[in-house]
């Protein structure tokens, strides 16, 4: 009988990037010190925002900061791996706060599984997404569909994956995503050429996370974490 590790799943809905980031840091600390005794997977969607990785990537911003200000889109430096990226409505984001050692995961295996979750979700919709050795994340042909970027603090991984479901792709045109020039971003809806329901994709995502990470999820709300 397969025994699955317990984990919590918390659907944050639409949440401002900075607020979700603050929550991640708080949970990383709680997980590290044992005040949280299980891993916790955050699901969210962010209002439009650009984030910069450790190495920066501002040179990969193709529009001026004044232009972003006028559009009301923030540019936030952050410690995850990778270069500049975009988050916005219609993009499904997962932040697992996961103690890698107790999960029995190497960094390589962990990244592989994050990519696998996105590949399975894409397959549900008949989109054949694949990995690409040149760059982490998942691709449909030469178009990038989903990204992976993680950070590790005292053995606890945070940040995670982002897959474009119904994302407005125009904003990606304002950057060289991940510092890669000439990369075109895509979304599941774009690949399918039809409208999609984000909620349905989110439910499917939960199933794939449970399966790929071999977890028995209990759903939780935000309140118990805000003591």
């Amino acid at each position, binding site marked *: 009988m397969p025994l699955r590790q317990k984990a919590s799943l918390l659907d944050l809905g639409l949440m401002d990037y900075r607020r979700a980031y603050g929550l991640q840091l708080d949970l990383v600390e709680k997980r590290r010190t044992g005040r949280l005794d299980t891993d916790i997977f955050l699901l969210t969607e962010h209002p439009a925002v650009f984030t910069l*990785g*450790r*190495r920066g990537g501002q040179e990969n911003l193709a529009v001026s900061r004044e232009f972003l200000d006028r559009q009301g889109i923030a540019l936030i430096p952050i*410690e*995850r*791996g990778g270069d500049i990226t975009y988050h916005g409505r219609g993009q499904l984001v997962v932040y697992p706060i996961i103690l890698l050692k107790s999960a029995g995961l*190497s*960094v*390589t295996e962990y*990244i592989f599984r994050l990519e696998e979750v996105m590949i399975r979700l894409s397959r549900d919709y008949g989109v054949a997404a694949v990995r690409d050795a040149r760059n*982490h994340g998942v691709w449909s042909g030469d178009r990038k569909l989903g990204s992976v970027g*993680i*950070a*590790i*603090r*005292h*053995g606890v*991984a945070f940040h995670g994956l982002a897959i474009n479901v119904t994302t407005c792709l125009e904003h990606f045109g304002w950057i060289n995503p991940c510092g890669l020039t000439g990369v075109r971003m895509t979304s599941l809806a774009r690949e399918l050429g039809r409208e999609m329901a984000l909620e349905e994709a989110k439910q499917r995502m939960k199933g794939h996370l449970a399966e790929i990470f071999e977890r028995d999820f209990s759903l939780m709300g935000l309140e118990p974490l805000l003591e």
Partner: protein
Amino acid sequence: MKEINELNLPDGLRYTRDHEWVKIMGDAAIVGISDYAQDQLGDIVYVEMPEVGDEFKQGEEFGTLESVKAVSETYLPLTGEIIEINEALADAPELVNKDPYENWIVRIRPADLSELDSLLTVDEYLDLLNG
């Protein structure tokens, strides 16, 4: 990925639970990351360094390593002052993958050598990895 018995873990160093090592050299010490850590991270593309003169407490974050896979913080094994950073890593961060012991990250002046007692010997570190 290397198996644990394939890792190069030199004797005579002290290790941390976060996979740094420290080697005492006179009244200074050099600090780097273990073979296990470089192997886990994969190809390192960026080493973020502190400034010479910066002071850190034992276990405090002094920089980060970024690989194609992840960003990982590095913690100072001993309280002390940074007296030198390995400038070669700015242009060639992959040196850490090639030899994580030859290619130390920072040189420090430790404030209190009795802190060494709280660090792991190679046997204790191996137990941690096997744990």
